[in-house]
């Protein structure tokens, strides 16, 4: 009887375990298939299409005109795109070191248990993360208004003349950095807190008993142990600073004089502002390649330090 239940495989052998294996696998493939089906339609196909588009001149309607590498030659002369890339780098250096230092310091303080109200402070600092950046961007604009905005009025009381928060190239970048730090500090702090809970508190305590000050313990024990989390936060922040969109389009609109324009804003403008779908695709791929290289460099730099 047992023999009759054993299916015959195409090659004529009987192997119940293999049949079980395939049967099981059939289910597993079904379960994971939605991702690959959706990725094929809405990921792979668009990417292939975009690669083709990047070699064409196409306004979104009508025939696609093959133009060879003309788009890529155009990118080399696209001052706004290169400015958007360098803005990404500038923004990265403006906010990432401060934000990650603050996030780690706050996490260490809250984790150490010397502060009452851990949950209260964590909730408060995390709150901006759940806020949509359209609302936040416009709220910041009201606070940073040059004439009679709250910040400038408060500065006036201390005798400082009004700051052109959104009208000056560097102040606009600083304002944008303030918004980003406000929005993302809590997120990074929560990641650092989770990271701290994986490293033993005994180590920092041992260091302080050995005569290290809390600040020395922070830099010589905590920071090195937290390297993986810091690296993760640095890389996501780097990718994030090139991919800023909502924050910029509500707070500074990319200005003044393109000082805060980011690659994503630039690509959106080319695609949906002037409907140059071919050129936008070429810029997007160039951007992808550059980001990829930067990420690899960061990983390498980190590995070399070990």
């Amino acid at each position, binding site marked *: 009887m047992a023999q009759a239940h054993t299916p015959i495989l195409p090659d004529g052998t009987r192997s119940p375990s293999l049949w079980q294996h395939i049967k099981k696998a059939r289910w597993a493939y079904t379960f994971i298939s939605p991702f690959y089906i959706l990725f094929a339609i*809405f990921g792979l196909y668009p990417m292939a299409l975009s690669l083709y*588009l990047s070699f064409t001149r196409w306004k979104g309607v009508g025939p696609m005109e093959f133009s060879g590498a003309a788009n890529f030659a155009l990118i080399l002369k696209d001052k706004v795109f290169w400015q958007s890339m360098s803005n990404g780098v500038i923004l990265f250096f403006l906010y990432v070191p401060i934000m990650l230092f603050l996030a780690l310091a706050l996490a260490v303080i809250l984790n150490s248990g010397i502060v009452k109200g851990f949950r209260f*402070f964590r909730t408060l600092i995390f*709150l901006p993360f759940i806020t*949509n*950046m359209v609302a936040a961007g*416009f709220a910041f604009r009201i*606070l940073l208004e040059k004439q009679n905005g709250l910040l400038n009025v408060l500065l006036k009381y201390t005798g400082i003349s009004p700051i052109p928060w959104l009208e000056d190239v560097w102040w606009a970048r600083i304002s944008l950095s303030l918004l980003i730090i406000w929005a993302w500090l809590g997120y990074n702090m929560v990641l650092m807190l*989770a990271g701290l809970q994986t490293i033993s508190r005994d180590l920092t305590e041992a260091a302080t008993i050995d005569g290290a000050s809390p600040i020395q313990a922070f830099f010589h024990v905590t920071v090195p142990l937290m390297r993986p989390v810091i690296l993760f936060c640095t890389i996501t922040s780097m990718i994030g600073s090139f991919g800023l969109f909502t924050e910029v389009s509500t707070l500074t609109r990319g200005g003044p004089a393109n000082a805060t324009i980011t690659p994503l804003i630039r690509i959106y403008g080319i*695609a949906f502002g002037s409907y140059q779908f071919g050129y936008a695709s070429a810029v997007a791929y160039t951007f992808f390649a550059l980001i990829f290289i930067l990420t690899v460099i960061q990983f390498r730099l980190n590995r070399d330090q070990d």
Partner: protein
Amino acid sequence: MPNHRQKILEQIMIYTVLILISIFMILPFIWMLSTSFKLPEDIFGYPPKLIPQSPTFSNYLYIFQEKNTVRILLNTIIIALSTTLLSLFFTTLGGYGFAKFEFPAKKSLFAILLATMIIPAAVMMVPSFVIMRKLGWVDTFLPLIIPGAANAFGIFFFRQYISTINDELMDAARIDGASEFKIFWSIILPIIAPGMTSMGLIFFMRSWNDYLGPLIYLKSPKNLTITLAINSLSGGAGLTAWGEQMALSVISLLPLLIIFLIFQRQFVEGITAGAVKG
């Protein structure tokens, strides 16, 4: 005891820093709320007032009576809820497939899944729009719901989560003749409910706060989402309806704020799971 004094000094410094940062964090919310109750002439009046001189509900009345905010909220809820439910279904299913089954090409399939996470939105923007237009999905909610329904981020999360479950329960059900889908539905899902809460909150928040997606795909006024609506109240220099805009901003924050205060622990778990354990 000098050591004791130093401790107190340290405490004062730490609390000063914490309070300063807390003020920085809370100020935009407070100002948003305050502005939403101000008359246009008071918004940039001198000196700026925390409590409006003559508080008014007119901004809220305007957005509900003139701007169809009920419809806008409904649109946003429909998109966010269907995204959340659909994504939860497909990502738990995928996570289960990777966590509890051995099958040919599993490693490479999983590597592909992870690799897709590094593709930036910028690359997808143009061709996705072209495809959605071909499908006739522009100005519908589908482009915001369907493509990300089986996202790699969620599958990765649930794979980690489900792999900690003991196999015995599943094996027992198999012996009882339960189908593989039944095992997933009635054994796995109840066990991973806490994880589904965490991930569901993140899916909901992302969808609710999304701006770029609706900006690209939604065209007609009847399809506006909350973030698009807030932006639509801004004009060129001097034309922005600040009071109305802040009123709508307050409305946009309330649902997430309530959800967050109730489920804070699950929220934080969802955020950290992928980054630190992974």
